[in-house]
């Protein structure tokens, strides 16, 4: 069947801000879907609150709403735009749940809107635990013994019957939020209560624990004609018990004989049929390692993280095909874009293996619990392709940017056997390295299998790598050994390090193509991966299809992590497009499967490789680019700069030396001095004594950080000598010989500028003012465009400073500058001559295609020849506010207090005619429930006590009841406010925790001088707030802003909808 003729206007719901469990993969899916729909001549309406996405670009849809993803706002948009249908399956769990709720309420029927992809019955079959169970039983597919319950008693009685351990899975939550394994009744009480609370329908599934079974996934596709195919099988190295998002995954499945494989494949097809899904679906199975016994764990009736991985692993564009199916096509009518000659109705054949390796945030969140379980904790992932598992795993590990170039881990090598055995059983993010180390020192495969249940197949492959490492370390580097090492993924640098030899030749990589069909057909879309010692396909492909255009390589931003998110993929993709428009042939190198940049048709050629010098060197040799772009790939790409320029590869845009000038403290200070621009006073120290001396000289508070940082890693604000001592001890124990920077901490207003410079002129698309004062990481601050209380004189000063800084750094492209205004003085805090986190947001609200312009400037164009002018661009009539979003509920043990270390995983945008309205939308979009009455619990550190009365007054005036800890309560009373005193946790049963659990409190304002340590009272209060879903404000500025919004009385009813497409015209 071709396109359904009834469809004219389709609404696509995105997945909202990036949180753990729902990341960039949905931008990739949504972007593919929007394109597929527009190709059909359909009018597309897009809704997504996340501005850092490609899908919210004006070019992606006919109407783009960056509005909160709530039922109220969606209804309003539907009534305004009157789409005839909604595509529910491409916006992750968020999009699916919202679509279902709209349907359930009868709203869609009333408005005459059809649900495409999955109807409410289908969604319920997968999402509602009881209906799921019934459906599986009906078609004879085994599931794990379990009980669906809405009460704690129900959970307990099931566990008594089935026996412990049991797993708790709340219904309708993301990435298993609130789930966990309970080993006894006490644990079950805790986990089940939390799960019930987190489930929007107060329902949990309690199931028998089958930890240790093999975890196998299938990506399945079905069309309206009933045709069904499987796209990819995947096997988790980590058996059942660790969330698939936190597992190391190999595709295709490798330890299943055809009998087992076909058994599960057939089951997956039966399931998608029984569910009635029209589009993509993901089925997870647990398979007993010693028998044919299996159980269906979960079905996602939508495009998912796994389907993004499966798309990139096979080359099959799942989201695109799913979108075509949703509007009526059958798979045999959809072209396979990779081969150009076959149809979408086939199953990809791989002639390589793919390894996915998660990227966890524990390097940033040192106090968060590292143990993995049913709750996903990874923020992102890398994928690697190799002709064998060893190569793919080695590539994945070095591409994950975790300071590993192989599986050997220095700190584990120092552990004694007992400690290592414990580490093996710890089930944390470092288990793979512990396994490797255990194998290296001779633990038997059987013993490790017994302790970890990791299949022997993987263990033997790791043992093979151990053997190679040992042979290399013997120092005798024969040609055969060198070849063997290279064919198993050891880079030259690692071989040199282990063997102590440098006198060996570089065996160049050759490149093979990902073509969906195991070379059965000639592929049209060049998507390459490296392999050692085999025929090169890239060279001949290039020679055959030489277009004569000059080639430019764009380096991507690697895995998504705190501090380097989807924004950098947005910029990379726009850079690719601008380069293509300018007549270049563009090559992208990246290793993140969740992204638009690694889509097969974004660049002219894609190399799916780690972003290390050695991995990109042969790409450069093959492609012979006229230049390389590093400015858009975040720190990942920037780190290649020095090596690239030393290797003689021209860097397009800002020269490497300028990047160094901005990063090197000495050079940067000299530059500011020359320009007569102030910066907070500071110094560099190495020891505790030096630190104390400098801190006292500058005067407290001071900001301390290691000289090399990303995302505010390991930064603190110290208020006293004790703070400095504690911090220095921690930092010096982690990072020996690290320089520590100490700066005077300036209290004041923080401002941020993204500017574009061509070496002669500078354009400032806009200035953003932070609501949160300096000291809270800019990525975690609420940022307002245009600034709301910046005087014309100060504005002029910022423009002047930015212009001079950009010019003197010889910027050719984007530059991001952060300022603080303290006691009426403007100070520069930081300068980054590259693309920043705020570029997509600012591009969208100003209508200035910033990356596009920056790219053209890199290629030699001048601002004066473009229609945007120079200096500060006139401010928009709309206010746009970026509000950070956190994933605290996913990371137990992590203190939620904001500070100089970045903690947010994503952001939303609120856009409106006034600041209040924009902020209202931003906060609603970020998940604040906007309760207008009830209680506020306040507990602040001494340094905040001076300010707290004014903040509290805002809430008191609104009629909120105030609760406070002793010290805070006293201050409030002194200022004439009523406040109920609450005891500390240790003091009484009627303590802060009991108060929070009572449900009387709707907001918490909590700050403490020193957080982080999970044992502290204040940290416990904040963790409790996360569990209970009570908004906890750790910034007084945000608290005031929230009170203002509550006072304003805005609702979705009264808010104005803004079509972004209109802004950019």
């Amino acid at each position, binding site marked *: 069947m071709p396109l359904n003729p009834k469809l004219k206007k389709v609404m696509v719901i995105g997945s909202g801000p990036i949180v753990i469990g729902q990341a960039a993969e949905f931008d990739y899916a949504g972007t593919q879907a929007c394109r597929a729909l527009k190709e059909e001549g359909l009018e597309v309406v897009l809704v997504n609150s996340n501005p850092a996405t490609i899908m919210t670009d004006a070019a992606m849809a006919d109407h783009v709403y960056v509005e909160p993803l709530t039922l109220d706002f969606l209804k309003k948009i539907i009534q305004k735009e009157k789409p005839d249908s909604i595509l529910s399956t491409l916006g992750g769990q968020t999009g699916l749940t919202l679509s279902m709720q709209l349907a359930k309420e009868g709203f869609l029927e009333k408005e005459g809107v059809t649900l495409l992809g999955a109807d409410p019955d289908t969604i319920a079959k997968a999402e509602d635990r009881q209906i799921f169970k019934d459906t599986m039983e009906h078609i004879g597919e085994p599931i794990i013994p379990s009980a669906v319950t809405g009460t704690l008693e129900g959970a307990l009685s099931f566990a008594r019957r089935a026996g412990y351990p049991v797993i708790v899975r709340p219904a309708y939550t993301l990435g298993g939020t609130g789930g966990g394994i309970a080993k006894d009744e006490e644990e079950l009480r805790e986990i089940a209560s939390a799960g019930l609370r987190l489930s929007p329908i107060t329902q949990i599934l309690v199931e028998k624990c089958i930890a240790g079974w093999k975890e196998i996934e299938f990506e399945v596709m079905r069309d309206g004609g009933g045709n069904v195919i499987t796209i990819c099988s995947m096997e988790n190295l980590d058996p059942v018990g660790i969330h698939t998002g936190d597992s190391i995954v190999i595709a*295709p499945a490798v330890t299943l004989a055809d009998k087992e494989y*076909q058994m599960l494949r057939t089951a997956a097809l039966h399931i998608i049929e029984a569910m009635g899904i029209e589009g993509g679906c993901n089925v997870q199975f647990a398979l007993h390692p010693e028998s044919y016994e299996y159980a269906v764990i979960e079905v996602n009736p939508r495009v998912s993280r796994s389907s993004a991985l499966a798309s990139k692993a096979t080359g099959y564009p799942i989201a695109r095909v799913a979108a075509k199916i949703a509007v009526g096509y059958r798979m045999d009518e959809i072209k396979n874009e990779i081969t150009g000659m*076959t*149809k979408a109705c086939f199953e*990809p054949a791989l002639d390589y293996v793919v390894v996915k390796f998660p990227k966890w945030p524990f390097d940033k969140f040192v106090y968060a619990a590292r143990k993995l379980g049913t709750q996903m904790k990874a923020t992102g992932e890398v994928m690697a392709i190799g002709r064998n598992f060893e190569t793919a795993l080695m590539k994945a590990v070095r591409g994950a940017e975790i300071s590993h170039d192989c599986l050997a881990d220095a700190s584990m090598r120092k552990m004694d056997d007992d400690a290592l055995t414990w580490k093996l059983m710890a089930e944390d993010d470092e288990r793979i390295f512990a396994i490797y180390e255990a194998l290296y020192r001779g633990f038997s495969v059987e013993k490790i299998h017994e302790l970890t249940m990791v299949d022997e197949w993987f263990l033997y492959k790791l043992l093979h790598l151990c053997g190679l490492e040992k042979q290399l370390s013997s120092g005798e580097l024969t040609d055969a050994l060198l070849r063997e090492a290279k064919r198993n993924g050891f880079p030259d640098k690692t071989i040199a390090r282990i063997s102590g030899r440098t006198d060996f030749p570089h065996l160049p990589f050759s490149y093979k193509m990902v073509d969906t069909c195991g070379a059965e057909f000639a592929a049209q879309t060049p998507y390459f991966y490296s392999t050692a010692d085999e025929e090169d396909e890239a060279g001949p492909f290039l020679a055959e299809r030489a277009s004569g255009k000059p080639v430019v390589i764009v380096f991507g931003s690697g895995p998504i992590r705190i501090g380097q998110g989807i924004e950098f993929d947005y910029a990379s993709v726009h850079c690719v497009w601008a380069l293509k428009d300018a007549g270049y042939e563009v090559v992208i190198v990246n290793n993140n499967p969740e992204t638009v940049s690694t889509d097969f048709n974004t660049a002219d050629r894609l190399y799916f490789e780690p972003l290390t010098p050695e991995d990109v060197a042969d790409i450069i040799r093959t492609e012979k680019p006229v230049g390389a772009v590093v400015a858009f790939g975040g720190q990942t790409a920037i780190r290649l700069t020095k090596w690239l320029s030393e290797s003689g590869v021209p860097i397009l845009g800002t020269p490497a030396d300028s990047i160094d000038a901005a990063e090197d403290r000495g050079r940067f200070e000299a530059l500011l001095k020359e320009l007569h621009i102030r910066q907070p006073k500071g110094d560099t120290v190495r020891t505790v004594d030096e630190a104390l001396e400098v801190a006292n000289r500058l005067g407290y508070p001071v900001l301390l950080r290691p000289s090399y940082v990303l995302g505010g890693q390991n930064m603190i604000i110290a208020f006293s000598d004790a703070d400095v001592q504690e911090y220095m001890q921690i930092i010096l124990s982690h990072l020996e010989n690290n320089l520590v920077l100490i700066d005077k901490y300036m209290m004041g207003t923080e401002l941020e500028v993204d500017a574009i410079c061509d070496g002669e002129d500078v354009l400032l698309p806009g200035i953003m003012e932070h609501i949160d004062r300096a000291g809270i990481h800019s990525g975690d601050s609420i940022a307002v465009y245009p600034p709301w209380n910046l005087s014309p004189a100060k504005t002029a000063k910022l423009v002047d400073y930015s212009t001079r800084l950009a010019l003197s750094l010889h910027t050719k492209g984007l530059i991001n500058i952060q300022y603080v205004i303290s006691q009426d003085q403007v100070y520069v805090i930081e300068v980054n001559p590259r693309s920043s986190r705020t570029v997509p947001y600012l591009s969208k609200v100003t209508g200035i295609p910033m990356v596009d312009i920056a790219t053209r400037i890199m290629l030699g164009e001048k601002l004066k020849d473009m229609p945007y002018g120079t200096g500060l661009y006139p401010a928009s009539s709309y206010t746009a506010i970026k509000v950070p979003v956190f994933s605290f509920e996913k990371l137990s043990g992590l203190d939620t207090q904001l500070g100089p270390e970045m903690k947010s995983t994503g952001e939303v945008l609120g856009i409106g005619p006034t600041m209040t309205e924009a902020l209202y939308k931003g906060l609603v979009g970020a998940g604040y429930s906007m309760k207008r009455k009830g209680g506020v619990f306040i507990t602040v550190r001494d340094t905040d006590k001076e300010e707290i009365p004014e903040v509290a007054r805002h809430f008191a005036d609104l009629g909120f009841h105030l609760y406070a800890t002793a010290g805070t309560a006293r201050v409030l009373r002194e200022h004439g406010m009523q406040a109920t005193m609450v005891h500390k946790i240790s003091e009484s049963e009627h303590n802060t925790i009991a108060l929070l659990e009572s449900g009387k409190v709707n907001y918490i304002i909590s700050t403490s001088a020193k957080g982080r340590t999970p044992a502290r009272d204040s940290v416990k209060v904040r963790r409790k707030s996360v569990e209970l879903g009570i908004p906890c404000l750790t910034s007084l500025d945000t608290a005031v802003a929230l009170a203002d919004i509550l006072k304003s009385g805005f609702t979705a009813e009264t808010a104005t909808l803004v079509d972004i497409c209109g802004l950019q015209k």
Partner: protein
Amino acid sequence: MEQTVFLQLEDGTCLAGKHFGAPLREDVTAEVVFTTAMTGYVETLTDPSYYGQMVVQTFPLIGNYGVNSTDFESEGIHMSAYITREWCRQPSNFRSQLDLDAFLKSQNVPGIYDVDTRFLTRKIRERGVMNGRLTAAKPSEDALPALKDWRIQDAVGHVTCKMPFEIPAGLPRHHVVLWDFGAKRNIARKLHALNCRLTVVPAHTACEEILALSPDGIMLSNGPGNPKDNLPIVKELSKLCKTGIPIFGICLGHQLLALANGADTHKLKYGHRGANQPVKDLTTGRTYITSQNHGYAVKSDTLPPEAVLSFINLNDGTCEGVRYTSFPGFSVQFHPEACGGPHDSEFLFRDFLNLMERRTGECR
């Protein structure tokens, strides 16, 4: 240190690799074909249709789950040699009995690994199927003319059963004669599971001998080689088509049935071998993913009016199935019995059963 061995192709290409499996005492010459199936190498190795061929596995890691004799599709390996990128020394699966190397040794079949199988596959894709020679000595160009001229001889004769035999069923509903041209075991297993009693007969069996068994239906099996090398069988088959006994043909059986009804077959450039081949049912419009292993195909434009094209390959449009109107019979080019590969089209066995049931009903 493993022995270095060479694979020489008739176009002069020569690849060096490492030896595994049975000792390479003398050169092995065979047609080189590739399969893209990612699982099911045991089934592939033991599929009699690969007689006279050496098989390249495009998936690089072979032998991961070891070898188990219950997965055999015949009594042993019929292919001449095996070509992989890597073979797994420590297989992992609860059913594994031995590793790939030991299996090849036990079956006296040599293998070559550590070759660039993707390069080889691309070569075959561009140049078409070629003869190849696996040799321990560095090959010389002088051997090429002989290599080019080499042909598979009497393929079916080598793999068919020598004597007829029966596979009884507990409560048989139908009696099926399985005409064995090199049948995969799962054809018999599928029919047996549907309560059919089977008499398996050798390829050279005459029409009269088959009729003497008074079968309810005749199953034409898969098998190796060029269908046109089996003209005596085609002649017997054309007689059977006139009896009104339901006939179901798979793969070579499908080609022979077409030849018996006056259609023609031709050799495909590099065949269809894999577990991911889409075929479209022209009656219902449904597409199925199928397991395939064939180098020849029925030419759709030579089908007589009473032979209706029922399935086509979605990739290249070639004939994948025929339904006959002159007698109760149909045939498919793909493998509904799977093993290895998807079971999506196993309903065809039930269709065959329905034909037999309808006929039994009419006869009563």
